[in-house]
C-alpha cells in the first residue's frame, strides 16, 4: 500500500508500461529494411530506454522512504477540479462556441474556486470573453472556435 | 397545431423543388469559406490565398473568400471536415491536391476519399524536372539510368515521402529499366535542394521555377521533363517519354472541391466562375510565374480523371511494395 502512495513508484510503473507498449508497437514495424533503418528502429530503442530507466526509478526510489506529502490532497483536488472544468470547456467549444464556453470556465474558476462574489465573477467572465472576441475575431481576424449557434 | 410547421416545411420543399429554372441561378450570398489542408504558408495555402486575392482584384465574386486552414492527416482532417460538418453547404469550397487522392489509398486513418466529396474543377497541372548537379557526369536521363544500372543502389535521389510524385517517377523508371537507386526522404523542398547542391545525393525531381534559377547560376543541370510535353522555358529538355522511357505520366494536380450533397446549380456556378477566372490576366501571370500548366477540367470530367488517377496510383503503389489501405 505504501508503494502506491509513492509518486515515483507509480509514475515509474506507468512509464514502464508505456515503454512496454512502445516496444510492442515498434516490433510491428520494420526494424532494418533493405534501404536502411525502418520505422521500428528508433521507437524500439527509446522504448527500451524508457522501460529500463523506469524500472531503475522504481527500484531506486521505492527503497527510499516516500517524501512526505508537502501539499495536502485538498490542493490536488482543486487542481483536478480546474482541469475538469477545462475539459468541460473544451467539450462545450463545439456546442456553445468559445465565447460562451470560456465565460462559463471563467465563472467557475472565479466564483467556485476563488470564492469571489458572483457579480465580480460575472464581470470577469463577460469582460474576458469580450476582450478575446475584440482582440482576435475583430482586430486580428483570427476565427475563435464557433458553436452551433454560429459564434 | 403541432403539424403546422411540418406542413409549412413540406410546402417550402415543394416550392424549392418545383421552382425549376428559377433555382438554377445559384449565387453566393455570404462570404465563402475557402479551405486548404496546409497550414498558413504551405503550398495549398499560398495557392488558395493567391486565388482569393485574384478573384477580388478581378471582381469576379460578389462576396469575399475567406481562407481557412484545416491541417492534419495529410488532408484527411480537411476531407473529414467537409463531409461531417459542411455537407450540403454551398458556401464552402476547398483546394485539393493529388494528395487528396493518394492519402486515403495509403492510410486507413483517412476515412473519406474524393468520392465522398463533390469535385468541382481541376485548375493546374504542375510539371517537374529531373535535375542533377552541374558537375555530374550524366548529361541525359539515359546516362543516369545506365550509371544506376552499373552500381545498383549506389546513386541517391533526394525527395519527399513515399507515394509522392518524386517517388512515383522513380518507381516507374526503376521498373521500366531495371535500374535501382536509393530514395532519401527529406521533409522540406529546401533540404532536398541543399542535399543535391551539397553533392550528398545525385538526382532530384524539382519544380521548374526553382530549377531555372539554379541552372542560370550554373549549379544544376536538368536532364528530363516530367510532363506531357516540353516546357516553353526548357525547349531542349526532352520529356521522359521522349527520352525513350515508356512510362505513364502521373500529373501533379490542383483544383477545387466542394462538400458532398450540394445542388448541381452550385456546381455549375463554380464551374463557370472558374472558367472565367482562368482567362484573367492575374491567373495567366500566376501560371507563367510558377511555370504551371493550365489544367482546367469541369466536374464530370474531373470525376472520371479522379477515378483513373486513383487507380493508376494504387497500382504503382502496390507495385512499389506500399501497403494499400483501400
Amino acid at each position, binding site marked *: 500500500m505504501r508503494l502506491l502512495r509513492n509518486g515515483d513508484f507509480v*509514475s515509474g510503473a506507468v512509464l514502464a508500461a508505456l515503454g512496454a507498449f512502445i516496444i510492442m508497437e515498434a516490433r510491428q514495424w520494420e526494424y532494418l529494411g533493405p534501404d*536502411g533503418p525502418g*520505422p521500428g528502429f528508433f*521507437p524500439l530503442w527509446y522504448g527500451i530506454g524508457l522501460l529500463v530507466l523506469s524500472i531503475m526509478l522504481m527500484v531506486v526510489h521505492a527503497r527510499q522512504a516516500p517524501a512526505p506529502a508537502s501539499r495536502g490532497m485538498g490542493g490536488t483536488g482543486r487542481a483536478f477540479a480546474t482541469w475538469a472544468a477545462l475539459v468541460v470547456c473544451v467539450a462545450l467549444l463545439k456546442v456553445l462556441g468559445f465565447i460562451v464556453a470560456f465565460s462559463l470556465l471563467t465563472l467557475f474558476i472565479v466564483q467556485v*474556486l476563488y470564492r469571489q462574489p458572483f457579480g465580480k465573477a460575472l464581470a470577469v467572465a463577460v469582460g474576458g470573453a469580450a476582450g*478575446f472576441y475584440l482582440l482576435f475575431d475583430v482586430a486580428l481576424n483570427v476565427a475563435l472556435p464557433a458553436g452551433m449557434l454560429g459564434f | 397545431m403541432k403539424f403546422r410547421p411540418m406542413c409549412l416545411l413540406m410546402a417550402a420543399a415543394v416550392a424549392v423543388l418545383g421552382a425549376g429554372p428559377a433555382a438554377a441561378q445559384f449565387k453566393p450570398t455570404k462570404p465563402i469559406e475557402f479551405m486548404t489542408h496546409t497550414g498558413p504558408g504551405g503550398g495549398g495555402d499560398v495557392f488558395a490565398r493567391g486565388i482569393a486575392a485574384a478573384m477580388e482584384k478581378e471582381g469576379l465574386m460578389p462576396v469575399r473568400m475567406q481562407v481557412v486552414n484545416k491541417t492534419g492527416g495529410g488532408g484527411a482532417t480537411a476531407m473529414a471536415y467537409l463531409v461531417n460538418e459542411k455537407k450540403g453547404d454551398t458556401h464552402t469550397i476547398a483546394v485539393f491536391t493529388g494528395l487528396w487522392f493518394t492519402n486515403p489509398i495509403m492510410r486507413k486513418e483517412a476515412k473519406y476519399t474524393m468520392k465522398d466529396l463533390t469535385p468541382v474543377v481541376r485548375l493546374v497541372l504542375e510539371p517537374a524536372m529531373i535535375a542533377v548537379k552541374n558537375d555530374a557526369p550524366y548529361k541525359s536521363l539515359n546516362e543516369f539510368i545506365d550509371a544506376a544500372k552499373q552500381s545498383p543502389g549506389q546513386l541517391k535521389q533526394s525527395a519527399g515521402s513515399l507515394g509522392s510524385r518524386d517517388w512515383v517517377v522513380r518507381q516507374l523508371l526503376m521498373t521500366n529499366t531495371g535500374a535501382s537507386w536509393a530514395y532519401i526522404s527529406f521533409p522540406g523542398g529546401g533540404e532536398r535542394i*541543399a542535399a543535391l547542391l551539397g553533392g550528398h545525393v545525385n538526382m532530384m525531381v524539382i519544380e521548374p521555377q526553382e530549377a531555372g534559377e539554379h541552372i542560370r547560376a550554373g549549379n544544376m543541370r536538368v536532364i528530363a521533363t516530367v510532363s506531357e510535353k516540353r516546357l516553353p522555358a526548357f525547349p531542349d529538355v526532352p520529356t521522359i517519354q521522349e527520352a525513350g522511357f515508356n512510362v505513364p505520366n502521373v500529373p501533379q494536380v490542383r483544383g477545387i472541391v466542394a462538400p458532398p450533397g450540394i445542388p448541381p446549380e452550385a456546381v455549375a456556378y463554380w464551374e463557370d466562375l472558374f472558367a472565367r477566372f482562368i482567362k484573367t490576366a492575374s491567373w495567366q501571370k500566376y501560371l507563367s510565374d510558377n511555370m504551371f500548366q493550365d489544367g482546367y477540367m469541369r466536374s464530370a470530367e474531373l470525376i472520371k480523371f479522379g477515378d483513373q488517377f486513383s487507380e493508376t496510383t494504387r497500382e504503382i503503389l502496390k507495385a512499389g511494395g506500399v501497403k494499400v489501405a483501400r
Partner: protein
Amino acid sequence: MESFGYLMQGFAVALTPYNLLWCFIGVFLGTVIGILPGLGPAATIAMLLPLTFQMNPTSAVIMLAGIYYGSKYGGSTTSILLNVPGESASVVTCFDGYQMARQGRAGAALGVSAIASFIAGTFGVVGLMLVAPPLAKFALSFSSPEYFALMCLGLAMVVLLAGKSMIKALLAMMVGLWIAGMGTDLFSEASRFTFGHAELLDGVDFVVVAIGVFALGEVLGNMEIREGARMLPVPKGLRNLLPTLQDLKDCRFAFLNGSVVGFIIGVLPGAGSTIASFISYGIEKAVSRRPEKFGTGVPEGVAAPEGANNAETGGAMVPLLTLGIPGSGTTAILLAAFILWGLRPGPLMIQDNPTLFWGLVASMYVGNVMLLVLNLPLVPLFAQILRLPAYTLYPFIFGISIVGVYSVSGSLFDTWMLALFGLLGYAMRRLEYPSAPLILGFVLGDIMERALRQSLMMSQGDLTILVARPMSATMLFLAVLILLAPLFRKADALRVKAIAEGS
C-alpha cells in the same frame, strides 16, 4: 569596399519615409503576433501576402521580414510573464525568464530579452551582409550525418537541464522522443502511435505540447493554493522595472554566445531557432560560473536563448537569399512571396536585385533599432499584467492557450490534446519530473531520427559514416563529453574527498 557602397544605397532605400513606414508596420505587427501565442509569423505573413501584390517588392519584403524578426522580439513576452511560450523558439526563455518574473523581476527579464534580441538581431544582419556566400557553402556541406551529430549534441544538453534526478530527466526526454515520433513516418508512410486518429497523422504540434506542459501545467500547479490569489510582486518605479547594470554585466557572454550560435544554426536549412536557443542555453550553462543557479531566474539564462532566437533570423536569410533555399516555415513563405512578386528567388537574386537585397539588409538594421525603441517602453507596461489578481490571470491564460492552439490548426482535436498535455504538465510538476527535457526530446526527436536514417541510407547501413566525417565526429565527441561531464564531476568530488580524508 564595394559592399559598403551598396549598403549606403540600401540605407537610401530603407530610409525613404514610405519604406520606413512599412518597416514600422512590419515590426509592430511582428511584435504583436509574437506576443500572442499560437499565431506565428508564418501564418501572419501568409495572411498578409495577398495585400502585398499591389506593393513594390522591396517595400513588401521589408515589411514581411519585419514581421518575421519582430515576432522573435515579442515571443519572449508571454514566456516571461505567463510561462506561455509565444513562439516555439521562446520556450527556452521560460526556464529562467518566468522564474525572474516570479521574483518580481519581470521587467528586468523583459528588458534583458529586448536588449539581447537587439544585439543578436543586429549581429545576424551583420553576418548576413558580410559572410553570406561563404556561409551558404558551409550550410551545403552540412549533410544528414552532421545533422544527426548536431541533434546528439542537443540531446546531450539534457544533462544540463536535469533537476534533482537524472533518471527522471532522461525519462521525460524519452517521452518527448515518443511524442515527436507520433504520426506518419516520412520514409515508410507507416502511421505510428496515431491510435486510429487521422488528426494525429501529421504528428502533434509543438504549440500544443509547449503550451500544455508549460503554461497549463504551471497554472494547474498554482491553482492548488487559493492563497495564490495574491499577486506576484511587481516593484513600483520605472527604474526597478528595467535591468540593472549588474544584470547586463552578467549577460556579457550570453549576448555573444546567443548571437554566434543562433546565426550559425540559423544558416543550416534543417535545424531551426528552437534548437539554436536550446544549444545556446546549454553552452551558457556549461561555461557559467554559477551553473547551479540556472533555472532559478538568472538574466543570462534569458539573454542566451533570446539572442540565439533573434540571430537565427539573419542566419535563415542566408540560404534563402543566396541560394533560394528556405530553412523554415516562415522563410518558405517568403520564398513563395518572391515568386508571386515576380522576383526570381535563387542563387542570382542578390545579383539581379541589389537594391532589394541591400534595402532589406539596411531595413533590418533600422527595424532592429525600431524594435528596441518600441519594446523597451512596453516593458513596464507589460509587467503590469502581473498585477492582475490570480482569479483573472489564470482564466486569461486558459483562454489564450485555447485560442493560440486553435489558431494554428483550426481543429478542436488540438484543444483536447492541449487539455491532455496540461494534465501531463501538472502531473510532471507534482511528481517532480523536469519539463525542459521533454520539450528537448520533442524538438529534436524527429530531426534526429530522420538524420540518422538518411545517413544510414546514404551509406547503405554503414555506421562509420557518422564518425568518418570531421564535423560530425567533432560534434559527437562534444556530445559524449557533455554526457560524461557529470560523471567526471562526481569522480572529481570523490577524489577530492579521498585526498581530504587521506591527508
